[in-house]
């Protein structure tokens, strides 16, 4: 019964019926990258998880920022040499976890539900999908974080009047710089989500990447490990966030706009890996 069937030559189709004659009356237009952007925008705005993660992100950024501003003011507003804009750091660090979650979910939820197969049937160019997702997610996150951090920075600067007035560069780094950095970490999460293809796994990895280096460094008491300890303290993601506010643990680490270039490099490598993986693996 299992002997392979011997294929017979096919009988030609009945005359009179032409092969493959169906043509759709709907005008055929080549899909563009702009179409993919519109599609990803529809996808990201039409699920509740986006609304929830972004809602919590705004709540943390604005709520925590304002709360800390009011607490400092109620303590006579004495913060010494600390730059006043660095008060926004706490909200941004917590909000980063929301951005990571959203970044991972943007792509891994497609794998979790099987939607990726429907998507790739509608658009066989996998690179276009990844690029469209990256652009839509990055811009959305950047705009929201930029608005929230600017609002918080303005309010905090007006609440705490005893501190030195921030310079233009400090303002730029505490709003635009930090927003770009946070969105970039989100983009890294998206790339990790595309590589791991599993929501919970990817989110765990990213939270570990953000928090664990600092925790490890705290417990490195041995002198022989001091070099490693120094490196972890300087280059862990919370330290890099602090660098944007000029509030770093030590002076030897990255400063100014350095963290953004570091993170951009890492993200570019991860996205490249995600692109190669997406193109070669079965879905």
């Amino acid at each position, binding site marked *: 019964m*299992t002997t392979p*069937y011997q294929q017979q030559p096919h009988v030609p*189709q009945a005359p009179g019926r032409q092969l493959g004659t169906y043509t759709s009356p709907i005008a055929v237009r080549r899909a563009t990258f702009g179409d993919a952007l519109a599609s990803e925008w529809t996808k990201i705005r*039409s699920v509740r998880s986006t609304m929830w993660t972004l809602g919590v992100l705004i709540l943390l950024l604005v709520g925590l920022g304002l709360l800390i501003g009011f607490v400092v003011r109620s303590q006579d507003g004495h913060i010494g040499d600390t730059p006043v804009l660095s008060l926004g750091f706490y909200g941004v660090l917590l909000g980063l976890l929301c951005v990571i979650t959203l970044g991972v979910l943007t792509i891994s939820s497609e794998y979790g539900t099987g939607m990726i*197969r429907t998507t790739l049937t509608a658009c066989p160019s996998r690179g276009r999908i990844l690029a469209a997702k990256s652009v839509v997610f990055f811009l959305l996150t950047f705009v929201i974080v930029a608005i929230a951090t600017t609002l918080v920075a303005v309010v905090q600067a007006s609440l705490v009047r005893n501190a030195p007035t921030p310079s233009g560069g400090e303002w730029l780094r505490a709003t635009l710089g930090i927003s770009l950095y946070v969105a970039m970490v989100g983009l890294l999460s998206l790339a990790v989500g595309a590589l791991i293809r599993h929501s919970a796994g990817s989110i765990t990895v990213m939270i570990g990447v953000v928090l664990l280096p600092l925790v490890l460094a705290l417990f490195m008491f041995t002198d022989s490990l001091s070099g490693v300890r120094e490196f972890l303290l300087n280059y862990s993601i919370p330290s890099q966030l602090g660098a944007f506010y000029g509030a770093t643990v030590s002076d030897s680490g990255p400063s100014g706009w350095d963290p953004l270039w570091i993170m951009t490099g890492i993200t570019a490598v991860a996205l490249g890996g995600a692109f190669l993986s997406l193109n070669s693996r*079965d879905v």
Partner: protein
Amino acid sequence: MIEAVGLTKRYGAKTAVHNLSFQVRPGTVTGFLGPNGSGKSTTMRMILGLDQPTAGHVTIGGHPFRELPNAPRQVGALLDAKAVHGGRSARNHLLSLAQLAGIPARRVDEVLGVVGLQQVAKQRSKGFSLGMGQRLGIAAALLGDPQVLLFDEPVNGLDPEGILWVRNLMKQLAAEGRTVFVSSHLMSEMALTAEHLIVIGRGQLLADMSVTDFISHNSADFARVRTPGTEPAQREKLTAALTEAGGQVLPEPDGALRVTGLPLPRISDVAHGADVRLWELSPHQASLEEAYMRLTQGAVDYRSTNDQKAGLQPAMPPGYAPPPVIPDVPQQGWYAPPPPGQNPYAAAPQAPAPHPGGPAPVPQAPAQQPVAPPAAQQPPVPQAPQPPAAPPAPQAPATPAAPTKPEDTR
């Protein structure tokens, strides 16, 4: 037109699809059949460029799927009804796909109307039943109004009205000159929908032919003949006469005879010549399901067994004998007669009362008759081969011998 050449897919040591070559032509509905795990879905994924074949290639209209210009306008597919994000509404799901393919947004409302989901278009698809999910999947496949359509199990979970709708939809799409490739487990549905069949088993091609050819190649038609149940001698007489006339005769469990190799009028003539009355003489045409079962018997990966519930039953009281196992109708060759010389009934007469070392079933039948009345007195053990309505009275002269036969009290 879908064309696969030497398509092979291996996952590690397991070969899911092996050297599969076939063509799916436009203008007809082509059914894709195979047991569970035979590689149907893997093949469909390879056609859509989702899985990369280990060897061989598959093209749609001459191009591999991933190199098609305007793929979504040429190919539409329903792979898995649950392959949607449950948190998105039906309309937004279709809208995102339409935007991705550069299809105008009003087309979304059109296909929602085609599949009858307008009323739930704003609801999240998480709450959809399987049938509604299938409709949403079909809507997504129709979105680009494509020339090639693939459906993996489209009628799963649909109600009878929905099944009828899908059947007509497939036929209509094919009649418009499109290529329609449908996989299904429902043979009766395939028999009504498809004109051409591609059957695979264990990842290999078993058949590629039209439905009518498939049925006639893989099954034998037979005639069912029933002699009066009250006169078993007539049955033996007819069996002998038909065998002599060149037919092959198999007893059926309920006492009828299955005759192959003789046309119906000839059977009637032979019976008339042998002076045997007939209660039934009916032609039996094999269905697609029977032909399919016969073809794929050797290629089934997942077979069910009886649930023994071993160790879960309460202990039997002492002296309790477990109920005797009723011999079942042999499954081998049940759907169609086996080739001559391989008659499972002749080799081991299971359906009638087992008679170790007894003669062949044909001469044995008169001796079986005394067995019937004692069996009828044991209600929990129905003797399948005997017609239950057989009145015991005519057999009375033969009964005295019965109680002394130890092998009868099974």
